[in-house]
Each structure stands twice: as C-alpha cells, then as structure tokens.
C-alpha cells in the first residue's frame, strides 16, 4: 500500500539547512495498522505531509497504492483520507454540510453522499446535531466529525496525525472505537502518528522516529521483548544510588538503565537469576520499593531515543 524508500526532506530556515526527514524507508501492507511514534520534531508530521501530497520530497521515492506521489498527486488524494493534528472544519457550516462538501470534493454522487453522511454521523453520535453549525461544537465533537468526514469517501488509506491530542479519555476511546469499526467494514490501511504510547500499542507495527530517522521498526510485542522478559524497578533513598549502581554492575553487569533518577532505577531482569526473591536478597538492604513488570513501549522508546521520558502531552 505504501512504499517509502530513502525519503529525505530538507528545509532552509534562516539560511540554515534543516533535515526534517533523513533517508527513511518503510513499507506498509494493505490493511495494516502502522504507527509512527516519536517526540515532537522527530519528523513524523513532515513524513505524513509528504505521504498526503501536501509537501513534496527533497529526494527519495514514495509510492501509494502503486502511484508515485510526484507523478499523480490527485490520483493518490482520491484514495486517502487525512485527519489532521489541528481542526480543519468550516465552522460556519453545519456538520451535515461539512460532510456533504467533502463528498462533493471527492466526486461522490448525491445519493451516496447522503447515505454515507447519515451512516457516519450516526456512528459518531452526531446525527442529532447534524444541522448545528460547527462553531457550537466542543473539541471532542469536532474531532469525531473529522473522523467521520475522513471516512466519507471510503479511503483505502487513512492517515491520522495525532488524532486524539487534547481529548478526554472517553473521547479518545470513542474515536478508536469508530476507527476500528470502519476498519472492519473494508480493509483500510491506517497510518498513525502519535506520542501516546498506548495508542501505538494497538498497531500491527510501530516505527520509532528520532531526529528524522527511524530507529526501530517492529511489532510492538517484539519491540518490548527486545528489552528482556521483564523489567525491575527499585526505589531507594538518594544516598544509596552510587552503591546500588556499583553492586548491580559487579554482580549482573548492568550498566544501562531504562529509567534513572536519584531514587529510582529501572532495568531488565538479569537472565541468570533463579527467582526474584534471590535477586532481591543479593542487593543491599536499603530498598524502599521493588516491583517487576513487563516492558512497555515507554521503556522501549526511552531506551532507543535516550529521551528522559518527558514526551509532552502525556
């Protein structure tokens, strides 16, 4: 469905060359749910702007449904639905009219527009508000309408740029429910960018981006497995930090931590210990907390990007 090879995008800003996307390559299969994960400024939005033909690449190839984005951008746009990070509705028109205009722009017949907008507005629970102007809608309602509108012309590829940013947990859940419902209806490919790690967790494959490059690309479970079967978190008084680190390094050769602060360390459980109890006993008796859990995408993300975990909007 999507083929990206050696894609680069450079900007000139204040006389300086900025490489927003630095030679990335990936393929997405038809019907796959693919997620781009990374902090702000990692190049996610630039990448999907190129895929949705808003920006043109500096170099490299991008094929969508077998069509080159440079050769036939209009042919591609017919098959993709884009849900932008910021709202893109006409707030002086009603919900129904926004849907209808979208249908017209994508060349849908009047009967089809009517049928589709009814179906989708009912799906996102906005059918009762179909005649209200968008300016009277809340943020969550606007987002739901944008999802419905993006699905209006039955896109083969749905591109979602941070679709649930700034929404309350219930709205976020609802939106994912609608997207999956639509995905069941026809085999739609989904490309998601997000920095909510738990949203990327639902994807078939995740590409982690950092500073314009893809630093890891795999199934979320495999990414987590790469950190070992389980993660240990220990808590202690700050003055014990150095002695604990020395002990861990001497006994188990642990020198890298997936999370580190003056009173907390997180690291993969060493494979050569027989049980957690044995492991616990081998440490100095200064711990105030001890827990074992499976790795999350957070841990993968932090260990790969070296980020301190302060990915914003979390």
């Amino acid at each position, binding site marked *: 469905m999507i083929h990206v090879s050696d894609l680069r995008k450079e900007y000139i800003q204040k006389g300086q060359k900025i490489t927003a996307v630095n030679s990335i390559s990936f393929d997405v299969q038809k019907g796959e749910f693919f997620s781009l994960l990374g902090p702000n400024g990692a190049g996610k939005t630039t990448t999907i702007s190129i895929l949705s033909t*808003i920006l043109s690449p500096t170099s490299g190839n991008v094929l969508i449904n077998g069509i080159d984005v440079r050769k036939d951008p209009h042919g591609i746009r017919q098959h993709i639905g884009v849900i932008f990070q910021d709202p893109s*509705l006409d707030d002086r*028109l009603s919900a*129904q*009219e926004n849907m209808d*205009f979208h249908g017209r722009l994508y*060349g849908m017949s009047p009967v089809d527009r009517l049928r589709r907008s009814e179906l989708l507005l009912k799906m996102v629970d906005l059918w009762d508000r179909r005649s209200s102007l968008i300016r009277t809608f809340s943020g969550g309602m606007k987002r739901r309408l944008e999802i419905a509108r993006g699905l209006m012309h039955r896109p083969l590829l749905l591109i979602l740029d941070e679709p649930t940013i700034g929404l309350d947990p219930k709205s976020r859940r609802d939106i994912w429910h609608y997207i999956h419902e639509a995905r069941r209806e026809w085999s739609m490919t989904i490309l998601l960018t997000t920095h909510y790690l738990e949203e990327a967790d639902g994807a078939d494959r995740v590409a982690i981006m950092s500073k314009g490059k893809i630093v890891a690309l795999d199934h979320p479970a495999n990414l987590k497995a790469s950190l070992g079967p389980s993660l240990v978190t220990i808590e202690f008084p700050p003055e014990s930090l150095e002695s604990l680190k020395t002990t861990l390094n001497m006994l188990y050769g642990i020198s890298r931590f997936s999370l580190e602060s003056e009173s907390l360390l997180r690291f993969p459980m060493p494979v050569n210990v027989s049980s957690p109890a044995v492991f616990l006993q081998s440490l100095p008796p200064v711990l105030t907390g001890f827990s074992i859990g499976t790795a999350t995408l957070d841990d993968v993300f932090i260990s790969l990007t070296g980020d301190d975990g302060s990915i914003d909007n979390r």
Partner: protein
Amino acid sequence: MEEIQRMTNQEPQSQLTIELISDIDQKIHSTGPFLRDLRGIYTLWLRDVIRLWRDRIRLVGSFIQPLLFLFVLGGGLRGRVVPQGSGTNYQIFIFPGIVLMSILFTSSFAGMAVVWDREMGFLKEVLVAPISRTAVVVGKILGGASNSLIQGIFLLALAPFLKIYPSFGQIFFMLGVMLIVSLSQTAMGIALSARMSSSQGFMVLMNFIVLPIYFLSGAMFPLNQLPTWLSVLSQMDPLTYGVDLMRGILLGTFYYSVYRDIFIIMFFGLLMLYISVRQFQKD
C-alpha cells in the same frame, strides 16, 4: 442549502440502490481530471455562496460605506463641485466609481476569506482533496467574484434614485465591466493571500493596496488637468480604466479610448489570474 435540506428528508435507500451506488461510484471515480476539477470549482463556489447567504448582516453592513460616499459625500458636494467636461453633477459623476468601489472592497475581501480558511485549518481539507491547485484558485475567485458582483448589482439598482435611467444596452455593458473587474480584483486579493498566514497582516497589506487603487482611479475626480505626479500614478492604476469604461458607458464621455480601457482591464485580470494560480502551485 435547500438542496441539502431536501436531501436529508429522503427515505433510506434499499439494498438495490446501494448496489447501484457502487456502480455510479465507479463511473464518477473514473472521470477525467478535467471533470473532477470542474466539480471542485463548483463545490468551492457553492460554499462561498452559502456562507455569504448565512452572513446576511455582513452583506447589509458592507453597503453602508458606498452609500455614505454616494449620498453624503456625493449629496453634499452635488451643488458645489462641477466636474469639468462631464456635463453632469458630482453625485452622478461619482456613481459609476462607487459601484466599482464596492466591488473592489468586496473582492479584496475574498483574499481575507482564504487567510481565514488557513487560520481555521479548512484550507488543508481543500488542499488534500483530489482537485488541482488551479481548480482551488479558480473556485475561490469565482466565489469571491460572485460575492462582489452581487454587491455591485445592488448598487447599480440605485440608479433611479439619482434620476439615472440606463438602457438595457448600457446595463448589459456595465455588467460586463463589473464582471471583469470583480474577477480581476478577486484574483489580486487571492494572489496576495497565498503567502499570508495572519488576518491582521493581510488587513494591513490590503489597506496599503486597496485604498490607493481606489483613490487613484479617478472614481471621485475627473482625470483632466491633474498635477503630473497624480496623473502618472493614476495611469498606473488598473482600476482607472474600469472606472473610465463604466463612466463612459453611463454618461457617454470616455477619457481614454474604449479599446485601451478594455485591453487593460482584460490584461490585468488575466495577469492576476496567472499570478494567483502560480502562487498556490508553489505552496
């Protein structure tokens, strides 16, 4: 709007119709880029017209300025200022210029609408739609020009209040001039909007451009015996030739030759169309 209302009242479709729809869909999706663009142009035009209709207060409000010029300034100077060589009173003399003034101001507002669309985010929705940039620009120009042409027609309809009774022929030719001026001034506004991201910035820019265009056009004064600097600037103003045409058609005296007037307003219109399309292609 009514169309949408009517459509929403229809009965749900049967299974058979659904099958038919997918057939129709195939046909529509396989139409060529030209038809796709025509449909896009119509859609964008329709949106502007619906929005104008919904914003009737703005429509009414925009008449206040030309009416003040026409009846207060025109009425006040009517007996005191006699435009040389026009054979008419001041109020009638400025009438064609006032019609074009309202067109000029409303047309440049179309550029503002593009900036608002960008601020609101709606422009992105249009830019990822399967229509060409040219269709986007042409659709916006037609939408904005319809807007200002409607305004111009309303003002032209005030002619009987000034005891001007144009013939059908005169009305026909004036509508032609008004259409060309509407299209070219809208295209200018849209060309200027292509790079603007803030509406405040655009407003300032428009004041720098629209007011000089208006004041230099000779809408408010006769073009003969002007100081040289003013005469030169006035000749560089494309609206001068539109005003001259309108006044010539209505009052029978042209300052420049008709052909020169027509050539210049057509040329300016096409140039602005070309520039605005080019500006948006680069985006």
